[in-house]
């Protein structure tokens, strides 16, 4: 369902944070904020902490187990070869390989997970309230609210440069 979103335009991240806190306190539905960078205080107040690190930990554990299995299979079971009298299963040297493989695979899988979750891919059309969101303005986009007039007032009060009403298709 397409409807007009109220959008507060800001040119200063401190004012944006102020407006965000005010709206949040009054229970407004906020859809998203678009801007050229992420202010850390705002981000902490706005979005829940990402759970990606937990998943990456799982990836890391899986990689270690998988890589250890692979090393053991190749060096001990499939083709045991005597290198200068060292044991076939020489764990100390495997540690280095395990360490590097874990970093490589975990990093790669984390990136893939991130791209999948945020649905970013090459050739995707970038949809934002205004191209200036990539340059010098912040756009606080609101969802449907029961008190649009109040929200406009609050936005203006907390220093919004402009308050727009716009239909957006994302």
């Amino acid at each position, binding site marked *: 369902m397409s409807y007009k979103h109220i959008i507060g335009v800001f040119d200063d991240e401190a004012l944006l944070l102020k407006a965000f806190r005010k709206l949040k306190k009054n229970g407004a539905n906020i859809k*998203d904020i678009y801007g050229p960078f992420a202010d850390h205080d705002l981000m902490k107040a706005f979005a829940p902490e990402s759970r990606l690190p937990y998943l990456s930990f799982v990836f890391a554990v899986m990689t270690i187990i998988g890589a250890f299995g692979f090393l053991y299979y190749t060096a001990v079971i499939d083709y045991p070869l005597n290198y200068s009298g060292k044991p076939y299963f020489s764990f100390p*040297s495997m540690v280095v*390989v395990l*360490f590097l493989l874990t970093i490589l695979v975990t990093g790669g899988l984390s990136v893939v997970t991130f791209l999948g979750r945020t649905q970013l891919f090459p050739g995707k059309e970038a949809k934002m309230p205004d191209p200036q969101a990539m*340059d010098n303005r912040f756009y606080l986009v609101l969802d449907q609210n029961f008190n649009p007039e109040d929200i406009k007032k609050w936005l203006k009060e907390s220093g919004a440069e402009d308050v727009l009403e716009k239909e957006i298709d994302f």
Partner: protein
Amino acid sequence: MFSKKISHALVEGDKNFGQISDELLSNVESKPALWWYAGLTLGAIFLAIGGWAFYMTLSQGIGTWGLTNSVAWGWDVINFVWWIGIGHAGTAFTIFFLVFRQKWAGSINRSAEAMTVFAVMCAGLFPLIHMGRPWLAFFIMPYPNTRLLWVNYNSALFWDVLAISTYLIMSVTLWYLGMVPDLATIANRTKNKLRKTIYGIFSLGWNGSLYTYNRYETLLKLLGGLAAPLVISVHTIVSLNFAISVLPGWHATILPPYFFVGAIFSGFAMVLTLMILMRKVFNISDYITPKHLDNIAQVLKYSSLIIALAYATEIFIAWYSGVTYEIYTFFNARATGSFSTAFWIMVFCNAVVPQVFWWEKARKNLLILFAASILINIGMWFERFVILVSSLAEDFLPSSWTPYQPAMVDIGIFVGTFGLFIVGMLLFVRFIPVIAVNEVKPISRIGKNINPKSEKDEL
């Protein structure tokens, strides 16, 4: 955790966000100057020389190099270690400063990472062609091949292959992910259709949503944390190629930390060289302030002290061990014998020159900074020369001692890697913003008197 106020401005001048985009994207959005074409031509000439040397190596073999039976590792491995050392600073910059929340690094890390990527590419070339038949390079990968063999996991050379490829992949990933928001900014600002399409494809549909930013920053921190031990492991493993052997001068437990600090040292020196050049040609001295250069100089000063300590430790241990061969290598071959010139250049450039940075005046003087950074790079090249050649050319048996001279092909390959580096860096400064715009914007107001953020504290 730490609420220490940053007392100086990280970005000079009172700029709004639009101005910052204008200034930092000007290298991408305007036509390149004459020096850019001149540099590209020079790089292309160097590359052509490298191409000739590469062709000679491939068509006639490693015999075209200056290697002998005794000195089986010469300029190829020296240059490999030198480039990989330079390639260390970029990711070290991003990662360590990301982990320690050093915000001033925000305006340097993009170009430092670019430097890393191209330096590691140059470095990777050497082991590849040293194989003699680089088209069979895939033999070093553990895959079920026709001979049913697997690779030797006990070999430091195999670790090296894995470490460098992992490092390259992680560095490129961090570098690319870091520039996605900036590529989106360029795609949104440009009027040119072709540019819009290409930058649009590479910006992955980035729209500046705060939800995405939240995940993005988590991912970057995560990758930074993963890659931090990698930075240490790469040069450590390079040093193990030497330390595992039994040659005097190589067989030492100090080699891993010594190589690691050396890598950070030479990499930061190269960063300093590039930063001084870039802030001159791109007019970005508001973003790379004298304070930035001062900080890099401080890092150089302290790592130089560690290097000097490592040199002294090596010499002391050689004497203390009482092993004749070790004593010969350090006291005769290196300090007073055939390799004394290289040895003292190394000591002077790496241990003495950076001490000039104890004086604040020297840290503020661009000429001294530039000269010192170049000298350090030369010194670090000589360090690798001393380590490699002096141990190989004069080892246990005097009957197998051989002098070492590089051949034209060796020199050609080295010049060729400079060509690759120059061309790579020039293409980088033409098509990618040299400073991470989305990282500089939030820090642009730190340390200013007119600080709108003060309103935040009242809430």
